[in-house]
């Protein structure tokens, strides 16, 4: 065996080791979390038997259910609005003769690189300056604000691949601009719009920092509730909750696969 092939074998082995370690670090905590959600013990120390107790406690916890419904509500509304704004903005930015295009493009990118905490504090300050009562409304507004950047960018990337000769083809065949949009352009960019909506939904659902700064007393989303519950020390119910969340995410990932397929 040659010297070079020995080196190659060494690096191949090295790669596999690194890869395995990464997978372990990523998934072992999640696995432990799932296992312990069925552990019949108040503290995380050793196995004391199998139970569904914490799932039952969760089910009976009205505050938690409320927080979960709040999260869904905020995510749904902010998704619909931010995707609509994103679509309109992306379409508007297609205009080559629009002079402020570069400037606006820059403003759109800014929230992506800005730390969440900065955005959270600034939104909180704005609302308190305007004496706007903090609560459900402010959280929704804040979520729309940070989701819009993402939806614009995702929809723009889909629009970039759009073949503009199709507009001439459609108009040649008797379609005016409205008909062209609804019969040709919209169906072709729909996968991009759905992808943007999905992204906005997940971003909104798991946002903690910005929600923390923009919510008021009495309006909790799920991440806010989880944080306060952990502070109060009921870790075990959180394990059960997290397990449910993981299954939910898995489900969304699976249904999003056909959508992603359409994009490619």
């Amino acid at each position, binding site marked *: 065996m040659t010297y070079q092939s020995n080196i190659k074998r060494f690096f191949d082995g090295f790669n596999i080791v690194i890869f395995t370690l990464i997978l372990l670090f990523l998934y072992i905590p999640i696995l432990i979390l799932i296992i312990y959600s069925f552990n019949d013990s108040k503290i995380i120390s050793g196995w004391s038997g199998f139970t569904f107790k914490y799932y039952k406690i969760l089910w009976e916890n009205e505050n938690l259910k409320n927080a979960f419904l709040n999260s869904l509500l905020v995510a749904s509304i902010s998704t619909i609005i931010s995707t609509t704004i994103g679509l309109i903005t992306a379409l508007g930015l297609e205009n080559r003769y629009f002079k402020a295009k570069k400037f606006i493009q820059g403003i759109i990118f800014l929230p992506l690189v800005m730390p969440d905490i900065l955005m959270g504090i600034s939104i909180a300050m704005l609302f308190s300056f305007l004496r706007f009562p903090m609560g459900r409304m402010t959280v929704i507004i804040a979520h729309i604000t940070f989701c819009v950047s993402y939806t614009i960018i995702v929809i723009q990337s889909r629009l970039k691949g759009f*073949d503009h*000769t*199709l507009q*001439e*083809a*459609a*108009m*040649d*065949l*008797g*379609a*005016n601009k409205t*008909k062209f949009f609804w*019969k*040709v352009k919209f*169906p*072709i960019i729909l996968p991009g719009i759905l992808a943007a909506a999905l992204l906005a939904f997940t971003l909104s659902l798991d946002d903690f920092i910005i929600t923390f700064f923009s919510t008021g007393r009495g309006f909790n989303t799920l991440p806010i509730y989880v944080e306060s519950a952990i502070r109060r020390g009921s870790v075990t119910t959180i394990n059960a909750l997290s397990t449910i969340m993981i299954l939910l995410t898995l489900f969304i990932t699976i249904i999003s696969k056909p959508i992603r397929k359409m994009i490619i």
Partner: protein
Amino acid sequence: MEDLRLVNVTKKFDNFIAVDSIDLEIKQGEFFSFLGPSGCGKTTLLRMIAGFEIPTEGNIFIGDTDISKLPPYKRPVNTIFQNYSLFPHISIYDNIAFGLKVKKVHKSEIKDRVQQMLKLVKMEAHKSKFPNQLSGGQKQRIAIARALINEPKVLLLDEPLAALDLKLRQHMLIELMNIHDAVGITFLYVTHDQSEALNIADRLAIMNKGSFAQVGMPDDVYERPETIFAAYFIGDTNLIEGRVVEIHDEFATVVCHTDSEHEIEIDTTYHRQPVLDEVITLSLRPEKIAISRRPPKRKDDFNILQGVIEDILYGGTHTQYIVKVGAHFLRVFQQHKKVYIDELSLDWEEHVYLYWHDTDTHIIFETDKNKVNSENIMKTIRRK
């Protein structure tokens, strides 16, 4: 009558004149072709007829209706695009039905007409496929069906075969002619490929810098070019500048002066009588000239010149000889038929006779100001 008429059509982009006051009449059912190099304005002219551009000046009529300011979706014309532009998100059936669906035609009628179109372009088996499952030639057929189903008065074709390979192109050309015969609609075909235009068109217009260099039937344009550009753009030609020294009933004698030592006399027939002492340009197609070591046996009505072979280029269907006659370089094409070859093949630096019939010389009443001919010949001679 539903003739297409262009009256003084002009298109300016800022200060650039893309199309310069064009007048043209195309008869209903005609197969007409715009032929020209890229940037000559042929596509802009087509786009103005389609409605994608509005003329800066002038009017476009179909029959008696002025369509020059109508949007594309209100014009009785349809376009075949170079990249086909099929809608990728709907099936072949829906692509073809698109125009009728937009016009809210009844479903059962749409079905019948799509079926009819699929039959016309021989694509019945593919109707439920999607555009990305078709080959280039098949996409082209669908594009034709999608346009023709709207029963346009004029079908515009913008270099429709440019993306296909040679064999498929020849095949589709015949197919297009068959479709044209079947539907009897006016076809307006834009191309930069001269053989396509010569093959397919009833009449063609050669375009240069926004205006027509010549309009006519293919053989007319090829055999009797009116301008140097027309002569030079279609096929190959030898352009020789000369002065008319004698005019007879049926032919004129032209002296082509290069310098005092070298003078050639060429006899030519004419369609319009030149004036004595007029300086004109002779166009002589390379394939009309015979080349041989011996002079021809028959001499009446022949031009006979002597020269030296400067270069030989093998070209498959023919061999190109570049022969130096006096100070002129002439291009000669000779086919390789065994029946023609009664002698050993010609070699570099050989002295040869060139001869052709008087009627094969053609007078262009223009002088070659840009020296396109001589410069181009120099480019084809290999450096020694």
